[in-house]
């Protein structure tokens, strides 16, 4: 067995998994609170990447310093993704909060379709090269063939986002309100939680993490188009389901498991069927353990 190749796949899977985790968090948080699969979540990730690309190009054109460009592009991506997440919730989901679930789901698909085509028409159907926002550090050069400095940046960002999110949910007032709403929406409203605000905040926070993931992966891969959100969204959803949808540690765990299995599958078996594999994985989880690794199985009531 070639240990270096193995290590490479292991770390590659870790990076892949941490990107999935950033997107999966949004799915799982929204699902935890309003029990809706936000189909448009992958599109938010894509819009984050596009905003970063546009802002970075404009600033580069203006001849700004490299670090400033990277930070400003990231900030702009987060702000715009949050704004889109907020607007999507207000337009497509809020009027349907008491409607049958099928309606909200169809509305979510419509939103996803709309956003994809909006970017397609407003920008371009082709792949755009994405500037590398994270530089290759010189001192890391000897180890770069195992894990590049970009991958390290991705891992570090993911870990810090996770810590921030955990702190927010565990120790702040709004985090408490979110947990209360997730447990029982009506009861939370009765004890004075502003449900609309909690839901909006959830969408905004989920969108922010998706935007961070979007910018990181786009700068890692080096190109984007309007379609990247779809596959990434599906895979992140698979990860969220794998971990147990609605559970935040579950989403992270599920993403890592998916990242590793994908990385080893493509590394040792075949890369043609990479996407097929993710879908098959999803089908198998849903058949054998629909509640996921960390999820609780819920009983349905009439």
């Amino acid at each position, binding site marked *: 067995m070639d240990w270096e190749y193995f290590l490479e796949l292991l770390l590659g899977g870790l990076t892949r998994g941490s990107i999935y985790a950033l997107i999966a968090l949004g799915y799982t948080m929204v699902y935890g609170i309003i029990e809706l699969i936000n189909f448009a979540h992958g599109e938010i990730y894509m819009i984050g990447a596009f905003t970063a690309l*546009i802002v970075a190009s404009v600033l580069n054109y203006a001849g700004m310093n490299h670090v400033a460009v990277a930070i400003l592009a990231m900030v702009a991506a987060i702000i715009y993704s949050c704004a889109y997440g907020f607007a999507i919730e207000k337009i497509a989901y809020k009027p349907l909060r008491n409607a049958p679930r099928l309606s909200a*789901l169809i509305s979510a698909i419509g939103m996803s379709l709309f956003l994809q085509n909006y970017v397609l028409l407003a920008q371009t159907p082709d792949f*755009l090269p994405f500037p590398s926002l994270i530089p290759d550090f010189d001192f890391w050069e000897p180890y770069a063939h195992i894990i590049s400095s970009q991958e390290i940046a991705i891992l570090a960002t993911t870990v810090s986002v996770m810590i921030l999110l955990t702190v927010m949910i565990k120790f702040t007032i709004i985090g408490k309100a979110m947990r209360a709403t997730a447990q029982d929406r009506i009861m939370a409203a009765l004890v004075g939680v502003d449900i609309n605000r909690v839901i909006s905040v959830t969408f905004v926070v989920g969108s922010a993490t998706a935007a961070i993931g979007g910018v990181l992966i786009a700068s890692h891969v080096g190109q984007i188009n309007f379609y990247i959100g779809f596959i990434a969204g599906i895979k992140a959803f698979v990860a969220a389901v794998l971990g147990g949808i609605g559970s935040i540690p579950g989403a992270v765990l599920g993403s890592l498991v998916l990242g590793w299995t994908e990385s080893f599958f493509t590394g040792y078996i075949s890369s043609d069927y990479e996407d097929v594999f993710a879908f098959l994985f999803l089908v198998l989880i849903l058949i054998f353990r629909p509640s996921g690794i960390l999820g609780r199985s819920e009983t349905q009531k009439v």
Partner: protein
Amino acid sequence: MNVRGELKKSFQISAWFMFLTFPILVIRVNTVENVIEWRWYNMAIVGVSTFLGSALWRYLLSVKEKSQRINAASPGNMTSFQKAFSDKRFFYPALFILIGFVISFPFLFSMYQANIMITALIYVMLGLGLNIVVGLAGLLDLGYVAFYAVGAYSYGLLNFHFGLGFWTTLPIAAILAALAGILLGYPVLRLRGDYLAIVTLGFGEIIRLVLENWGEFSHGPSGIANIPRPSLLGIDMTLTQNTIFTYFVMIGLVLFTIFVVNRLQNSRIGRAWIALREDEIACQAMGIDRTRTKLTAFALGATWAGMGGVVFAAKTTFINPASFTIWESVIILCIVVLGGMGSILGVISGALVLTLLPEYLRAFSEYRMLIFGIMLVSMMVFRPEGIIRNVRRTYTFSKE
């Protein structure tokens, strides 16, 4: 006072959207030539259209709230359209004109028009098939196009390897698609609505990716060419005659579909589907076999997709995996949603509107999917029952 408040609100929303769409709509970076395009006119368009749009949006929401209050008082009333439809004085002449139009259509118009009509009729059939799964049984199937692909490829491959003709393959493809439906339905039976949507979507993508990558079986992305058109007792036909013949085959198939779906709707199994859609647990408590009911819905829905696929392959004489993407499923879903879930007449009109309008409004064809997206959202928000609401059979008591 109210008007001023509304104006202010609209203004705020329009400013918000101008901010929202600013980077993506206004700036375009040309990375090859390193030029930045500023398209300020787009911002003006967004500003004006969202100003009007948001006013319309709030007006429609208030209308909907009012009508809900009225509807709560008297449920189950028919729309004026349906009232006119059930009136015999109006119904028979209309039916007569319709039949005349349908029969004379390919002779009155060009072959181009007839071809468009055939496509529209295929979508009518697909819509009616998906209507069984989504509209009646309430199972959101986003991989419906997979069965369409199964149909098209069964004709393509059976013809390529064994030389089977259109009429032999039609039932075979229907059976194969139904089997695929059962195959998909069986593992996902326990899943609830939203999981089901994702799994079926995944299934649709798996089929497409397999068709694309497994070259020895499906000829890969280059597809299968030279598929024969439908034949009639071995008579040699010119292209024009064949198109007309295909048109009538399709009319026949659509009539057959309408007949079967209509009979199914009021049958024991049809009522079981509707009961399942309304409440699964209550439905099981009433003694309905959930597994069997869901599987029949999947299988019967898939059957029509299989037959539609055969006609599609025969009409275009060429198939490749690119025709069977997830967006095809979404278009069929749009047809069912726009027309009215569960309503046959609704689905037919939805299919005709959504396939014929983009054909005749070529100028808007690039905005087609964008408009479909807006349509899905706004239909769900304002009129979830579709254009033509499905009216269930009800018993009315007449006072004597």
